[in-house]
């Protein structure tokens, strides 16, 4: 009976995920195409005739009803055809495929280390709940929450990349050929990403660890002589895995998307965030539409995966 129920709950989740994806595509298409700027006159020469205007409008699909245009766009999206950039004429799909590895190489180290540091600091604070360490970590995290991403970036740049500080790293750019040049360019952005997420991460992990530490299985483990390290890294971690994995996956859009948008714009790194920024300044509709839609669809896919993983790991969740 149970596998069947698990399967049906998974199918239900998948169906809801597909419905969400459909809603996301509808919303981004409506926002950016239906209410977007009229491109007719960008494509026309001076003093166009009535027929020329009608011709261009027909090419752009403006004469067809909304639902037909949305359907046609959705069809090409499913086939992986994202159209071509308005500014360069290049196909959008390979453009993004080329930029994505750069973005991942840029944000992954900071994302992972930020979560790891957050976990360790959260453990430290929770273990010494109410003590000096706890107050220090909590105070630091409130200060961290109050710093803007932008302020952290500029501060790190002054300290690490200018003659007024240590002047160790480049102020901008991404000429990565090998490991040492990678480290050269990725260090300051990584530190910035850690800085901006550490406050949130620490509070989250502290709350998770505190909740687990209060449970009875921990008391039992301690009664059986488990050391503090075993309690924290085995018993607490294993039981806190579901919320931790959920958070890791759910924070991807904020950290990866927002992080790459600001970091790549600031440091001039040719990833997805820079492409998005450039498309915005030049009004490149196909590129913007593709980025917004694919990010949202990808996020829904991550949610479904996270949910599926949690349900399989914890049979109690399959009931809900």
């Amino acid at each position: 009976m149970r596998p069947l129920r698990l399967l049906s709950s998974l199918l239900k989740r998948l169906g809801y995920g597909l419905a969400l994806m459909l809603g996301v595509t509808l919303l981004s298409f409506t926002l950016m195409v239906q209410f977007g700027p009229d491109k007719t006159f960008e494509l026309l020469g001076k003093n166009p005739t009535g027929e020329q205007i009608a011709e261009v409008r027909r090419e752009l699909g403006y004469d067809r009803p909304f639902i037909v245009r949305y359907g046609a766009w959705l069809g090409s999206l499913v086939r992986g055809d994202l159209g071509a950039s308005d500014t360069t004429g290049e196909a959008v799909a390979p453009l993004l495929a080329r930029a994505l590895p750069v973005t991942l190489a840029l944000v992954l180290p900071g994302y992972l280390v930020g979560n790891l540091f957050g976990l360790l600091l959260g453990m430290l604070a929770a273990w010494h709940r109410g003590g000096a360490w706890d107050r220090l970590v909590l105070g630091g995290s409130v200060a961290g929450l109050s710093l803007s991403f932008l302020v952290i970036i500029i501060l790190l740049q002054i300290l690490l990349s200018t003659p007024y500080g240590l002047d160790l790293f480049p102020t901008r750019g991404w000429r990565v050929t090998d490991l040492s040049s990678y480290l050269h360019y990725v260090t300051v952005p990584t530190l910035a990403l850690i800085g901006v997420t550490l406050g949130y991460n620490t509070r989250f992990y502290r709350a998770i660890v505190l909740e687990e530490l209060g449970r009875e299985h921990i008391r039992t483990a301690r009664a059986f002589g488990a050391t503090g390290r075993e309690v924290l890294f085995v018993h607490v971690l294993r039981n806190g895995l579901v919320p931790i994995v959920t958070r890791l996956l759910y924070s991807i859009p904020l950290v990866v998307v927002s992080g790459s948008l600001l970091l790549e714009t600031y440091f001039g790194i040719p990833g997805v965030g820079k492409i998005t920024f450039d498309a915005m300044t030049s009004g490149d509709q196909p590129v913007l539409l593709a980025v917004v839609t694919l990010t949202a669809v990808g996020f829904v896919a991550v949610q479904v995966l996270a949910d599926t993983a949690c349900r399989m790991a914890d049979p109690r969740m399959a009931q809900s």
Partner: protein
Amino acid sequence: MNPAASAPALRTREARVGLALLAVLGLASLAVALGWLAQGWDQAIDDQWSGPSLAHWFGTNRLGQDVFDRALVGLLTAFSVGGIVTVGAITLGALLGGLAGWHSGSAVDEALQYLMGVIDSIPIYLLAVALAFSLGGGESAIILAMVLSFWTATARLVRAEVARLREREFILAARAIGLPAWAILGRHLLPNTVHILLVQATLTFVAAIKTEVILSFLGIGAQDGVSWGLMLAESTQDVLAGHFGNFLAASLLLFLLLLGLNLVADALQDAFDLREPAR
């Protein structure tokens, strides 16, 4: 919970510091709004990049304008953008969350939850980019984007609370004596969600200010006038040449405002036992 219950929570040392910060910064921005302070912010009043002095606490910028005056005008921008976004998002969240919770389990509830799911799948920065693209940029596009994006967090919490309260005896009693739904909502349900709205308002305020700074820096937000995001954008060139006035003034005020809000948000969350996993 009675909002008066928040009074003791705001007597901790951290909360007092937070409230004091907010009071000072609030008064300063009021003085700017009323025209008592920082009125020469758009005039070149001295040499460019004159260092800090008694007349210009953070020196002057590239155009010879007083940096601290501009940072104070940025404070007013932060308060007004944050205020509009907070009022908009909290009102929308309370109304739609209340509606979904009151009809929890019905098609209305399902539809509203689906809508929240769709909106939550689009990161705020991309929603702002999309709206700025279709509306042609400017402060109103990013305010709209933030309201559209931020209301769902409040709505989910209000929905859960109202759905829970709806089954409680005092609400059943109110329904049994024939009180109309709007009266129950206004007299019994809304006052019982005020603590959620208060906490969410402080958190939304923080998010709105942070987002506005970054969007303005990226050129999606304020184009004329003064925003800390624009000052920080200017400072990225300045700091390479050794001029730190813009950076220090904008980040100092930004930090103090966010710190004040975060300290008060923490105290409120502790008081109402509303500590949810930080986002």
